[in-house]
């Protein structure tokens, strides 16, 4: 890299949001994923407000109505369920509960697991031992069984569901974070920061966490699908979300008896789960590249190649 001559002037950098948008534009898959997820989030926020009534209204003439019948009202384009309720409207409405449970559980378990993992990785042996044994206790207990017991004792509600699912997923983040911290804390740049007098706080959050973060985001996106399915199992057992409340997982479960003659009852909400997870994966993949200065050029030069 040649040293240029025009020294003295400090280069201007474009604002961060602009370069992020540019990088997103370069990766078309990630762009589609981002658009799709935005739609889902909008559905989750505004869907119940406008469509709650229609989603709950029985219409016996539309029982198990087949999908893609465009002569009907747009809400029936994805078909109707066993009670003749429009599937599309129900999927939109159900987005709220599904997103709340899945995002809540994933964010909680990620925050708590990462925090404990950082502590376990960077503090004394004793503190680390205590945290790790606690994680072992959670891990050795089958997570669904734990959820069943806790939800049986507490009343099944969205909040309780989030808490229970979050607790069962904590060890995944905790163990990953700790393992990475143990390796990164020995790196030279951490020592360099120590020599400068950086506080533990600064070393952990400024130097270690950014290196661990992409790994955690990748796990979180995979976990997102797991949590959605775990929630549907619990709902199926009758201790998760209770009808008439709906989630995608619950819709999949409810469609199961009709699989042979009305496959769309399970398939459509299942497709919503798959597309959401897929989008999250694509977006996290993009984010991992965008966050890493060493990899970022892949997004910055993509246009020139074409």
């Amino acid at each position, binding site marked *: *890299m040649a*040293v*240029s*001559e*025009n*020294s*003295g*002037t*400090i*280069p201007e*950098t474009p604002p961060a949001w602009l370069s992020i948008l540019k990088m997103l534009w370069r990766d078309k898959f990630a762009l589609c994923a981002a658009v799709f997820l935005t739609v889902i989030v909008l559905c989750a926020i505004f869907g119940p407000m406008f469509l709650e009534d229609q989603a709950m209204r029985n219409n016996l003439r539309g029982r198990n109505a087949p999908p893609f019948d465009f002569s009907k009202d747009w809400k029936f384009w994805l078909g109707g369920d066993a009670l003749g309720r429009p599937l599309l409207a129900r999927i939109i409405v159900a987005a709220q509960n599904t997103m709340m449970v899945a995002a809540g559980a994933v964010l909680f378990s990620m925050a708590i697991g990462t925090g404990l993992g950082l502590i376990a990785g960077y503090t004394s042996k004793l503190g680390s031992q205590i945290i790790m044994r606690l994680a072992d206790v959670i891990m050795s207990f089958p997570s669904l069984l734990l959820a069943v017991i806790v939800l049986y004792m507490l009343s099944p509600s969205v909040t309780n569901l989030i808490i229970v699912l979050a607790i069962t997923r904590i060890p995944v983040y905790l163990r990953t974070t700790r393992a990475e911290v143990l390796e990164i804390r020995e*790196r*030279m*740049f951490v*020592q*360099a*920061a*120590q*020599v*400068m*007098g*950086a*506080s533990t706080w*600064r070393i952990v959050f*400024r*130097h270690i966490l*950014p*290196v661990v973060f992409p790994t955690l985001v990748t796990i979180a996106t995979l976990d997102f699908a797991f949590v959605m399915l775990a929630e549907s199992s619990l709902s199926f057992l009758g201790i998760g979300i209770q009808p008439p409340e709906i989630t995608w997982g619950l819709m999949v479960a409810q469609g199961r008896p009709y699989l042979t003659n009305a496959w769309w009852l399970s398939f459509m909400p299942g497709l919503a789960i798959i597309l959401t997870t897929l989008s999250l994966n694509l977006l996290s993949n993009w984010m991992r590249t965008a*966050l*890493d*200065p*060493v990899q970022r*050029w*892949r997004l910055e*030069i993509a246009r020139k*190649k074409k």
Partner: protein
Amino acid sequence: MSHLLEVRNLTVDFHTAQGTVHAVRDVSWHLDRGECLAILGESGSGKSVSASAIMNLIDCPPGEIVTGEILFEGADLLKKSGEERRQLNGKRIAMIFQDPLSHLNPVYTVGFQIEEIMTAHGWPADKARARCLELLERVGIPDFANKVDAYPHQFSGGQRQRLMIAMALALKPDILIADEPTTALDVTVQAQILALLEELQRETGMGLLLITHDLGVVAEVADRVVVMNSGQIVETGSAAEVYRAPAHPYTKKLIGAVPGGGDMAQPLDTGIAPILEINGLSKHYGAFAALDNASLTVLPGETVAIVGESGSGKSTLAKCLLRLEEASMGEALWQGRDLVTMPARDLFEMRRDIQMVFQDPTQSLNPRMSVYQIISEAWAIHPDILPKPQWKERVRDLLEQVGLSADHMFRYPHQFSGGQRQRIAIARALALEPKLIVCDEAVSALDVSIQAQVIELLTRLQDELGLSYLFIAHDLPLVRDFAHRVVVMQGGRIVEQGPVAQIFDAPRMNYTRNLMAASLHPDPEVQAERRAARDAIKEAS
């Protein structure tokens, strides 16, 4: 007469996302039986590429052999099939690498790995075993009959390189390619390995192709040398000729950059009060003493070099001083106050005065932070040095002070070369306006010409800012040019210390003399004298 191995007009390209890189362009050289040819060049000069092409180690794509032929006993290797080349690799042409640890498989015994070469080429197991024992004895592995079933981690670095040599020689190859075989080793071990390679070459009459960046290694073993720069051969000739009368400016520059030729610094006036005084500093791991009762002083504006082989405790000394490790005993007085027992609050203030530059700038700079963030972090930690609005200006000044420019401010470490990265690390150390900088092998990962530039930078900064350096190194010629005083360490102890002229011209201890004799000089004639001196020491002991 045809040569044993001849490379003709070889051009290799690598197609990368940033465009096509011409790794080597129109390169031709040859190697005869019983001779040693050295390919000399700095990192990125393409010196390893032709060897990789011979061994069929270039990944295609991204690599592409554009033109040229590689003639082995008259037949073009590039026209042979993969299967035919596998028959030659290992059997007729063998190779050893820089880092023996990463080229030995940690889960197999060394005996198994050496025998595997032979069984892969169709030898029966018992015959392979016998040959393996013979080889281990020949390359000088002590207690070889038992060690044959040991695993790679149970050997020292020098022994591992001997194992690699044994492996390479198993099938009595006609050509041995050695890619930086001694770069990762201590000077005394380096001398032993080079001597072994020479002996083996004389015994078997094979051709030895040595790839190196070190003029000293060339002077020690090579008959002829090929000098490469950015993918092209700039000069060819006998080792002595090239050193005596370099024709190409690049070769002149390379020889000029080699340390060890300049004037030695005069010791500073001892009347001044020392800025740092270490008394009886020790560090024990259980019963093992990594650092044992070390005492030394550093004056303001002085460069004190600590030299020694790996494991001599020189890095431990630095770490104890900076409190990256807690010392077991002793004291380190910084302007009269003890660093070892200092409470955390005072230590924080002290951090401003003592800074460190690490060996490998690739690892010591956080890859996710821009240069601006890396340098300004010092002021984020110590907010009273500089208010935030002035950070950018000051980063620019520091970058210019170390020979970079303001344009580099928002780039990331991976976008710089090794030498530039080390400049960034120095700028970071300077940001705190320290009085003492501890340089832990700060230039040993750099090319010779870059090394010279960084040393020049350090000297200039010392003159301008009155800095003191504690300069930890294993490279003696470098120390000779740069230090005021030298401290020699062995096995955790300081065995000798004194002004640089005294240590280099009249070393008192045997260990120091050994170290001096083992270090390599770029002049083949001087090197021949040194070898004689080394043999004399060996016979005397």
